[in-house]
């Protein structure tokens, strides 16, 4: 019972964290969709996807930076493609703020506005770090919770399974 309470506590933490991120506009409901997609066939779905996302977007960000740092840079088209991809994956996991910045970034890119692009890139990198940290935290709590209570997603089922004690 104690552990179950602990699990509930952890769950509350998770929800608090999520609502914070929602409130900040870092995440949107697409993230909830993602959570809905997790089922028995892929119990770590959200975690896996987010991991992939971070890996991929890290590459994209460094590509973008590489493009912009180059003084002779002029390949805005290529940049646009990177941005599109980043925007696609970000929006797909519900990373709302990142995709919003991407939008601005792309607009700057379309105008060949390099300073604006650089600014946007910096914002992206910041957002990326922030989201990475927060979601990392989120998953850590979740893992604790799973360990503690054997309860996992979806959240709605939290009360249904009694905690398993060894």
């Amino acid at each position, binding site marked *: 019972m104690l552990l179950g309470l602990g699990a509930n506590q952890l769950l509350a933490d998770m929800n608090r964290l999520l609502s914070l991120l929602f409130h900040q506009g870092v995440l949107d409901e*697409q993230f909830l969709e993602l959570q809905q997609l997790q089922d028995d066939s*892929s119990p770590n779905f959200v975690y896996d*996807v987010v991991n992939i996302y971070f890996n991929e977007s890290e590459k994209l960000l460094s590509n973008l930076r590489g493009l912009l740092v180059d003084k002779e840079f002029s390949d805005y088209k290529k940049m646009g493609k990177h941005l*599109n*991809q980043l*925007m*696609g*994956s970000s929006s*797909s996991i519900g990373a709302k703020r990142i995709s919003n910045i991407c939008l601005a970034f792309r607009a700057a890119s379309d105008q060949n506005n390099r300073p604006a692009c650089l600014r946007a890139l910096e914002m992206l990198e910041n957002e990326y770090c922030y989201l990475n940290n927060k979601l990392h935290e989120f998953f850590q709590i979740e893992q604790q919770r799973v360990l503690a209570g054997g309860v996992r997603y979806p959240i709605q089922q939290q009360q249904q399974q009694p905690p398993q004690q060894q």
Partner: protein
Amino acid sequence: MEFPVGLRVLVVDDDVTCLKIMEQMLRRCLYRVTTCSQATVALSLLREKRGCFDVVLSDVHMPDMDGFKLLELVGLEMDLPVIMMSADGRTNLVMRGIRHGACDYLIKPVREEELKNIWQHVVRKKKNENKEHEHSGSLDDNDRHKRGSDDAEYASSVNEGAEGLLKIQKKRRDAKEEDDGELENDDPSTAKKPRVVWSVELHQQFVSAVNQLGIDKAVPKRILELMNVPGLTRENVASHLQKFRLYLKRLSGVAQQQGGMPNTYCGPLEQNGNHSSLGRFDIQALAASGQIPPQTLAALHAELLGRPTGTLSPAMDQRLLQATLKGPAGISVDHGVAFSQPLIRCPSNISKQFPQTTIAAEDVNMALGGWPSNGPGTVGPINTLGGLGAQSGSILMGMLQQQPKQTIQSEPSRSINVQPSCLVVPAQPSSSFQAGKNPASLNQNCSFGRNSAINYSLLSPQSNNISFGTGQVPDGNLKSSTVLNGYSGPGSISPSMSSCSINADNSATRQLQNSPFASSAAGQSPGFSPNVSDTQGSYSTNSGQVLDQGPLRNLGFVGKGSSIPSSVYPHYTKFFIKRSDECFLRIVLAERNF
């Protein structure tokens, strides 16, 4: 399982995150999902596993291939519904997707609800295809069973454009280079306008333009200029051109399955890929369209099969021919035999063996359909169709008529065929073959003659007509090239043909002269009309020169084919094909399996 369950979906996205999410979403929709992170891989997957997917979901921006390009290729080759998706939902991009034929455009993030509904595009597509078939005979990869009829429509419509055909023949150069290149070259940004209805007339204009330019040099812009149709865009033409090419290719695929004929379209020497099957296609098409009654085909096959084989020296094509000519002797006689031998290059014994004979029968079809003209004058595939039909018809008739006679000789098996043959003849109206309309068809025959150096000698020992065999020279010019020259030169339709044909005719004439029976043969055919010489086709030309000689006249008739009553035809039975192309061999072998 109810319908949408198990829908086979291919997802293509270079963004692994999205790919993973999509996969999961689709799986939860109970679809069968295949994911692919590279467009090129996806394309090859689609090509390899034709018919293994119902719908394709593709990202727009992909590094190895533009999503629109993939969309277009898939739309053309597989004719699958393609749904585009991208985070970029700007109007111009979505519009581009539509123009390229995307059936939907999902803006990322894609939601599960949207995916639950994608099955509708599969249904819709099928429905539209059916409609299209009715109108323009679009190409459908999925439904093979439909194809026969579709092709028929297609072919017939093509045939109608006689002028187009003429131009084609004149202008067309080697078909060898054909397509692939251009498909790939095509600017990915090429856009399709919504949907132009390619009516028969429009398509004819298109075909004639293509042929004016030469299939290998035909680029959408120039075609558009030539067509000069208001409202038609370069994109329309571009996509239609691709479709057209794919169509030709696809036909070849069909041909291979059915066994058959090397493509008229391609030079005989070409590789298999090109071998396309227009020829075969024709027969099929004709059959499908009812122009050739099934019985006819059956009869043809039966005949060939049933026939006992005379022994001919395999190696010697010339000998065969000559033998046929000279010999009243029944020696020569089997078409199947003669025919098959050269192709396979097997020892003479082959003919005797029934299985092979069978092959031969099919070969006949091949021969008919298959002879492409190498020359600049190469006939457009379409034309060929007409021609083939005519030829096959005539041949069939000839064969049929022969049968009774042969039956007399000693072969019980053939007798079966006789009835069908009668049926067949009436069934073929001249119009159906369009022999009259299409000089092309006649040419076809010519081309046929040239390449193949095919000899159709009469089955009946008595009659030695080499109508088809004109190309072959008694002198021993077995090479098809000689024959080719005669026919191919202008490559254009009937009128021009005469000059060309002359050479061939001469040779033929000689042969005829050689054979004492030739005249008799002519005499034998009751229906034989002296007028035959009028025929437009290559045959006619031949006949004109050869007119003096009875057998040649027969040829002329053959060219007309459909119009002449069966009785007219003397017996042609022997198909002698000398052809060393390995492609051809391959086809023959394939046929055997078939």
